[in-house]
């Protein structure tokens, strides 16, 4: 065996291992759904504020988040049935998503209900948790776009601190569009290309 061949074999092994880390094709749906749920929640919240129906703001969020959770469970179960491989990368992201999901509920609903802090801080904490979710996922799948989206969420969380608490949630909209829906659309296009490649 020549040195060139040995190097070639090592490169080949790396390439095969990298292929197992390709982001799960259908993941874009989770990003898109949660992005839309969050935007609708923010819009709903400001409409209720405009109508001075403050007591319904919590209900607004509970309804949208519940819809997101139900959809996530149904879609995840469907994907699980279709899955051809159980990769460690997917296992880690599933556990990361569950951890962040529980943290979202605690930070967004439970802790403010226990009066641990005012509602104005929810958006800041949610942005920080989203930053961890997106940035770590970017690291696991070695996808720089997601890592940068994570940085944007972190910058957004910092920026929110300097805004009046009434307007913090408004900053969510551009953050969700850039840091959540944009990668979802890129993933969707990757998924379509992958599907076309598999057909041909």
């Amino acid at each position: 065996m020549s040195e060139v061949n040995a190097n070639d074999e090592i490169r080949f092994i790396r390439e095969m291992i990298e292929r197992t880390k390709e982001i799960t094709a259908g993941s874009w749906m989770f990003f898109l759904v949660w992005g839309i749920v969050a935007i609708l929640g923010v819009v709903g919240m400001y409409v209720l504020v405009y109508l001075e129906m403050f007591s319904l703001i919590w209900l607004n969020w509970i309804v949208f988040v519940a819809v997101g959770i139900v959809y996530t469970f149904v879609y995840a179960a469907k994907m699980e049935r279709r899955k051809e491989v159980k990769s460690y990368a997917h296992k880690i992201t599933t556990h990361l998503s569950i951890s962040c999901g529980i943290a979202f509920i605690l930070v967004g609903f439970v802790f403010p209900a226990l009066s641990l802090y005012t509602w104005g801080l929810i958006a800041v904490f949610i942005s920080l948790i989203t930053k961890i979710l997106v940035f770590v996922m970017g690291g696991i799948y070695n996808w720089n776009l997601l890592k940068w989206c994570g940085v944007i969420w972190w910058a957004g969380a910092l920026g929110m601190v300097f805004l009046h608490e009434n307007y913090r949630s408004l900053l969510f909209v551009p953050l969700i569009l850039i840091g959540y829906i944009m990668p979802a659309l890129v993933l969707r296009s990757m998924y379509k290309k992958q599907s076309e490649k598999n057909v041909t």
Partner: protein
Amino acid sequence: MSPEKLDGLDPIIHSRIRLAVLSILVSVDEASFNYLKQTIGTTDGNLSVSLSKLEEAGYISIKKTFKGKKPLTTCNISEKGRQAFSEYVKTLEAYIGFKK
């Protein structure tokens, strides 16, 4: 890969498809036959032969089940296979290091 001097490399792994199968299986819990076929880019026949050789050597285990009405073949790497793969990579790395 040209079958030149093997230099202590495990002959069971020293084939493109079998090396690809083990490289994938060390990184996943389990993978289906279809996933391996698509990821490696090989034919049903070639993959079947390679999987059988790896199974005979005790490097992988193959499970045949049904997903609905369709047959589903899944593979995972054994401890013996993991060790053999690790030795194979170490031999390659040692070879490159020795040359340098």
